[in-house]
């Protein structure tokens, strides 16, 4: 068990990307009742656009910014063009989900057409590594985790202290009442999709630095983000973030000490067991039916 600490540290690093994706999913779900399956593909597209910007001469930092901005704006467009016309309500919940699945397929095809099937390498934001307590960590990983934590803190601050953030929370509680008191649902939905997809863009960029950019970049990370969302509850922002980190650590611990071959199966078995005890997740709120 001497390598437990590095395993946990690695889990924390991968957990930070899961947490970002999970946070993106929850922000969008709370605002528009849509489970956005395309969030990973939108973010991947953002990374490729960022890479193209770099290839055209932009600095790494500028390409990074382009990736995030593009992801966010693509999210806004998606909500406006594909999700809003479906209308609100319980019946369109699954319809919206399936629409985002369709969008994901389309983006997949677009990426294959424009950038081909060969994975592209992504330069790290910083290079070199450092040894802490005998654990070797690359500066890149430290930087990505730090940026992820800062982004999460910024999101927390935004929802807690800014007028717009408070309006978004109010709207998430009750869309109808929010309309009545004059909150603009279109603006809130657009903002939520921007934030959610931009956070995913951040996560996708970090993933691309770790591996390389390909159409399937976020696939397995998105699964783990969903697992994190289950764990924390589909309606809770802190729950999603904590859930993402927990999954990252759990995933690494299971892979190291139990079975590298069946890590997904074991992780999801744990989630299902947890959900049987707390069906709405640890921090989510259950919605009960009206009688």
């Amino acid at each position, binding site marked *: 068990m001497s390598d437990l600490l590095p395993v946990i540290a690695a889990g924390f690093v991968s957990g930070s990307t899961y947490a970002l994706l999970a946070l993106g999913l929850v922000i969008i779900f709370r605002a528009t009742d849509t*489970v956005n399956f395309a969030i990973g593909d939108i973010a991947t597209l953002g990374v490729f656009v960022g890479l193209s910007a770099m290839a055209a001469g932009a600095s790494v930092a500028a390409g990074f910014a382009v990736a995030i901005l593009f992801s966010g704006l693509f999210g806004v467009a998606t909500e406006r063009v*594909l999700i809003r*016309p*479906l209308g609100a309500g319980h019946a369109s*919940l*699954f*319809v919206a*989900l*399936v*629409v985002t*699945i*369709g*969008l*994901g*397929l*389309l*983006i*997949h*095809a677009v990426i*294959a*057409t424009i950038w081909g099937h060969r994975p592209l390498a992504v330069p790290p934001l910083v290079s070199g590594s450092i040894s802490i307590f005998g654990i070797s960590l690359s500066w890149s990983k430290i930087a990505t985790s730090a940026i992820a934590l800062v982004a999460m803190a910024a999101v927390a601050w935004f929802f807690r202290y800014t007028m717009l953030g408070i309006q978004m929370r109010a709207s998430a509680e009750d869309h109808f009442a929010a309309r009545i008191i004059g909150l603009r649902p279109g603006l809130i939905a657009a903002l939520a999709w921007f934030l959610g997809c931009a956070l995913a863009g951040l996560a996708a960029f970090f993933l691309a630095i770790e591996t390389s950019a390909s159409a399937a970049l976020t696939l397995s990370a998105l*699964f783990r983000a*969903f*697992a994190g969302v*289950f764990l924390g509850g*589909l309606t809770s922002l802190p729950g999603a973030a904590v859930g993402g980190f927990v999954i990252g650590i759990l995933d690494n611990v299971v892979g190291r000490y139990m079975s590298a*071959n*069946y*890590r*997904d*199966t074991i992780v*999801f*078995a744990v*989630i*299902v067991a947890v*959900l*049987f005890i707390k*069906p709405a997740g640890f921090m989510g709120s259950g*919605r009960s*039916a*009206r*009688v």
Partner: protein
Amino acid sequence: MSALTRRSLILAIGLSAAALVSLPQVLSSYAQYVVASIAFFSIAVLAVSMLAGLTGIWSLGHTAFLAFGAYLAANLTALGLPVEAVLVAAFLGAGLFGYVLGLSTGRFSVLYFGLLTMALSLAASEVMEHWVEVTGGQQGMTVDPPRLLLTGASISLGGAFVLSIALATLVFLLVDVVADSHVGRGWLAVKSQRTAAMAIGLNPQRENARAFALSAAITSFAGIGLAYSIAYIDPLGFGLDGGVKLIVATVVGGAGSSLGALLGAAFIVTVPELARAVPAVAYYVFGSATVLILLFLRRGIVPSLRTLLRPTSRAAVPAEAVDVVTLTALVRELLPPASAALRLENVSVHFGGVKALDGVSLVLPAGTSIGLIGPNGAGKTTLLNVCSGFYQPVQGAVVRLGEIDLTGLPAYARIASGLGRTFQHAELFAELTLRQTFETAAALGAGRRRAAGLPESAAADVAERILAGLGLAAYADEFPDMLPFGIQKVADVGRILATGASVIALDEPFAGLDAAERRAIRTILDAMRAAGVSILIIDHAVQEVMAVSDKVVALEFGRLLVEGDPDYVRQHPEVLRAYFGTSDLSQARKVMAS
């Protein structure tokens, strides 16, 4: 389309496909393979589509059951077992697993459940990749030609194509029969109005589990057809991509439509085959088809076309007046007389800090009627929800029907002891016509009527007679959202007649009705009393309540204010104060009496 036409059509399509595949020189061997692929994929698409259409559950994980069938076929055939044994083993295995999984829908919302099926697909992929002894791992495994017990001989690849088509035909027939039965209607009822479905005795968790079990079981048949028709299987075909393709096919064809499932299967099979040269094309087509169809033909191609082709609804017909004599006879035939008293003692319900009910006790002797009155917020509906099991009273309460302790019984189990209810907002099943609603409820109530020694008649007859008796014949085949509210309320009362309840709680049956509809409800209530049914009625129409009640109970702020015979309560100063908030009782009495 009648059931017979539909089933003949399924058989005809199946037979012609089989002929196409087995006659030499009609199709190239490649085209034969495409037809067989459409056949086995149509089974899987139908399984997903039926589940989504009848229960509202969307599964992304059905490839797991597809894989289960395929690997089971490969392994059992290698052991020398015949096709028939493989079919039975797959059906039972996948069905059992599906049932257990489906039970968890009681714990999770439909959304969570859908996402969990995705996890199932993921876990299944891992097992396929790593359990090498059974699955051959990433390399996959070849499938031996299957042996048919029926003929005793092994079948060729061409025979496997025919087998796939035969399985598809069989499954389409099976699903058609189930969807058209009381079981399938019950699933629709649970999907469209969970609360009311529980009130007529459907256990949502069990119904969803049954539907999921059937869906999983038939999907394994698709896997068997696939394994034998391709003769080689590997994990790639059963990944999440496969699950997404099944969803795409369901959406394109239209959830819940058999013809749509066939169309969807043809779509997902032929598009990649036609676009073999350029792999991204299939993704473009799948993606844009999904998005465009959901944006513009929300319910998929087949159901949307059907709506377009159906004649538009006629002008509203007024409900026919009810005939007192026939109705009284009908109610007597459908509802067994109550044999036990409903007893509530010390019932309290708290919502956070609010005491909606505070120590209320009440006895409803068999065959009598009690009217519950009181201002808004008095706790009337809460009390009714305690009786029907939707709210749990605080510890120490007694809720009994004769010898039966109701407190521990879930809502859907209470009708079994004869306790039924109606709803303030009718809460009809949006996806069932009135006739189907009455038939479904009548099928659930048949046992109760038999036990009480009432004349037995088929569910269809019961529905027909309720429609005629309540003057609803003109609306028999309409869906509730097309009907005026008053008609919906009458239909809700009709539904309770079909269930064969003997103690009936009615939540504001008169609210929102016009004079003719009120008369109809009054007639039914009188008929119920004449039939010996116990009645608990809530309404703000105090005059109506007084007229049908043996005893009236007035509630205020969750407490029992006054109880007694109608005249006593009508005159009671406390009741007048509660309603009018005035001390000038002479004036209040005048209003109350008018």
